[in-house]
């Protein structure tokens, strides 16, 4: 008999941010426990602690009746815990059998026993009710099938606690059904299941109990979901003071700033056409893979469009490289700060001045350090960037402060006309979010056309003047603020088969 999993007062701090603050909950064997919350609420951090990837600063973790301190992922696995992450970890060029048995491949005298491995894998898959050929290579499978393999792998190691991190985010309706059947089977076998998602329909469909996280705190724990309403969970997730966070400021909208006509490119299959006025904040909403980030890359010249054209203030631009877009006054804050935004080991000063210095250096070659220091100090003060000094390497700053530095990089330019922000508040705590929203309004009040791409619908409903919805590489709707409604936007964003 498995005893329950208990997390007691778990706290985890990162530089500048308290990711988890005394989080407590209990998950029982033979049940599916939901862990819900907005992005940045601390769900993933909690799973990483459970998986031994992070060590908590304080708090107790009780697995199978004894307190555990995992020092590594291996010790967590040894304790019977399996975390199925959003990004799956597998070897694409090996077969299902090899992936399942990786680390424990059957061998004799050091030689791999292929037939033996396939037999073991076959039996295991059959017992799980998964119909896959163990000889198939992982890269030939669909995402859902790869996920199945990952779960099977966990069970092969005799995992008693299985945590799934947003497993359905890239699954179709049908694939989701298969996954749910598997989860229900596991529940029947008495496993402890933790299910992380922000799709409330799935929670009500699948889960028995639920813990709500917000900004690293446990907001509520429901031992049973009977009698709990959807609205109640939303309120707990988002918090009561939504309007306070966004503090939307209406403003007058000027003439056309950005015109995009018939742009197509990688992952943007249908020609995208829209225009934005000066001082207007337009939200782009769509699921992962809907082509919203790819469209922004096309506008910025980071990838080459197949067709279509762009005009800024009526002037057509040929954005073949980000440099062209920047010359026309377009700025872009990419989705992944670490990947496309910051230069991690360079200082705050260098990161702020990176773009402006390309043109403002003395005679285009020498650097005017005194000027750059002055600019850096001004932005650190104006945007409230929390850093010991301007020489600090940017990687040591918190996510919110890194984002402010990247914004400063663009605010540093004199003739800013269009600002594109892709997921500007991802992984940022509420206080910093509020400041970023105010900066967005400020940019709009300066006359910029502002595009905000986000997968958080409440955020876009809070700050945008207009919302453009994308689905499967095409723009499906253009909705003015007066007509914002969560259900309407979602139904336009979800692939057809999921609209029931």
């Amino acid at each position, binding site marked *: 008999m498995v005893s329950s999993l208990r997390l007691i007062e778990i706290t985890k701090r990162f530089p500048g941010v308290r990711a988890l603050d005394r989080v407590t909950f209990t998950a029982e064997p033979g049940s599916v426990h939901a862990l819900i919350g907005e992005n940045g609420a601390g769900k993933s951090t909690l799973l990483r602690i459970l998986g031994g990837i992070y060590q908590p600063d304080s708090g107790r973790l009780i697995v199978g009746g004894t307190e555990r301190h995992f020092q590594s992922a291996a010790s967590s696995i040894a304790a019977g815990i399996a975390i199925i992450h959003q990004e799956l970890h597998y070897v694409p060029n090996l077969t299902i059998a090899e992936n399942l048995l990786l680390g424990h491949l059957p061998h004799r005298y050091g030689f791999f026993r292929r037939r033996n491995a396939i037999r073991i894998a076959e039996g295991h898959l059959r017992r799980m009710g998964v119909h896959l050929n163990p000889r198939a290579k992982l890269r030939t499978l669909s995402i859902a099938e790869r996920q199945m393999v990952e779960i099977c792998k966990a069970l092969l190691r005799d995992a008693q606690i299985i945590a799934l991190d947003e497993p359905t985010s890239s699954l179709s309706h049908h694939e989701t059904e298969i996954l749910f059947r598997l989860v229900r089977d596991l529940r029947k076998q008495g496993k402890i299941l933790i299910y992380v998602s922000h799709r409330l329909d799935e929670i009500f469909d699948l889960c028995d109990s639920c813990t709500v996280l917000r900004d690293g705190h446990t907001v509520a724990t429901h031992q049973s979901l009977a009698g709990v309403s959807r609205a109640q969970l939303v309120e707990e997730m988002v918090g009561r003071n939504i309007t306070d966070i966004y503090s939307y400021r209406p403003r007058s909208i000027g003439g056309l700033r950005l015109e995009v006509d018939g742009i197509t490119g990688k992952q943007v299959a249908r020609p995208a056409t829209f225009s934005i006025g000066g001082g207007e904040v337009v939200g782009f909403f769509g699921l992962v893979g809907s082509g919203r980030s790819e469209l922004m890359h096309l506008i*910025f010249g*980071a990838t080459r469009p197949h067709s279509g054209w762009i005009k800024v203030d009526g002037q057509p631009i040929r954005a073949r*490289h*980000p*440099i062209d877009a*920047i010359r026309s006054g377009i700025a*872009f804050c*990419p989705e992944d700060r670490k*990947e*496309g*935004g*910051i*230069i*991690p*080991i*360079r200082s705050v000063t*260098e990161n702020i001045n*990176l*773009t402006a*210095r*390309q043109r403002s*250096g003395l005679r*285009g*070659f*020498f*650097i005017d*350090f005194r000027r750059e220091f002055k600019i850096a100090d001004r932005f650190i003060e104006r945007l409230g960037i929390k850093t*010991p*000094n301007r*020489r*600090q*390497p940017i990687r*040591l700053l918190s996510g919110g402060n890194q984002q402010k530095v990247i914004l400063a*990089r663009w605010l540093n330019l004199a003739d800013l006309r269009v600002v594109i922000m892709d997921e500007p508040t991802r992984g940022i705590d509420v206080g910093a979010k509020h400041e970023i929203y105010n900066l967005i309004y400020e940019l709009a009040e300066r006359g910029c056309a502002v595009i905000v791409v986000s997968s958080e619908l409440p955020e876009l409903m809070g700050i945008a003047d207009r919302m453009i919805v994308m689905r499967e590489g095409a723009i499906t709707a253009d909705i003015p603020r007066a007509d914002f409604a969560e259900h309407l936007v979602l139904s336009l964003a979800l692939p057809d088969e999921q609209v029931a």
Partner: protein
Amino acid sequence: MKPFMKADLSQEPKVQRPAQSDSGFRRLSAFLLEYNLIFIFLAIFIALAFSVRYFFTVQNMLGLALSVSQIGMVACTMMFCLASRDFDLSVGSTVAFAGVLSATVINFSDNLWAGVAAALLSGAIIGCVNGIIIAYLRINALITTLATMEMVRGLAFIASHGQAVGVSNVDFIYFAGSSFLGISMPIWMTLACFVLFGFLLNSTIYGRNTLAIGGNPEAARLAGIHVERMRVVIFLVQGLVAGLAGVILASRITSGQPNSAQGFELNVISACVLGGVSLKGGSATISGVIVGVFILGTAENVMNLLNIDAFYQYLVRGAILLAAVVVDQQRTRGE
């Protein structure tokens, strides 16, 4: 660990006198940590000056400086290459080819500057080809320069029919053999390279963009840096300086030798890595590179003075490199 100590210092109360001396000591230790390589080198250098006969003599010091002069100048440009997260294995072959070419051209034209120009031009072309393949065709730098290393070495043998190309032109011998203020020309040129490239790295947009590209190429591109063009320029300059080193070497040995500068590229990269240039890109200092060059040169020089068999010198050089990177890894692990 470094930034942590700095942050600590800034919070230090500076009211009482005893506290000040304490903070002074900590500042000193932080300074030592930051520049530890230089101090280790100085300590070893002083120890050698007292223990090894003839080491600390003017003649030996000049000989040491001359022996590292080619490695020194190419290390300057290799520093840029590594700082931008790239790699160049072709410099050794370029040195040999440029030497052969300049000797051939001088024999043909009897004009020193025609030979120098040919060497510089060929180096620049080789570098430019490397850069274009790496930046625009997006081929891995290791593979690209491994291939051009072989090809350029082949060109050196073809151009010279596998024989050393002797030069009798007096200007050519005088080119590297002359001296100013008692210090020979190659040393002056290497010093000039240190100053020039140190300045380029620290105070120009070219240098800072190089570090930004190495720190995060995608972010640099999205911030409006012409990453591809920059990389071509970095390789082009690298080839140019390797070409110059080739002429100087040929002049010093009064002939263009197709099999000279074998393993040169590895010595240059070793010197940079010894000098704390990160292979992950994004960080480099000219002072580190200078020290790295001199560590290699001093080791070789001392072993020669002590009459240690040349075969053992490979062993020692490798061991020094390994020790330096292990120490560096330990030091930066906390970050």
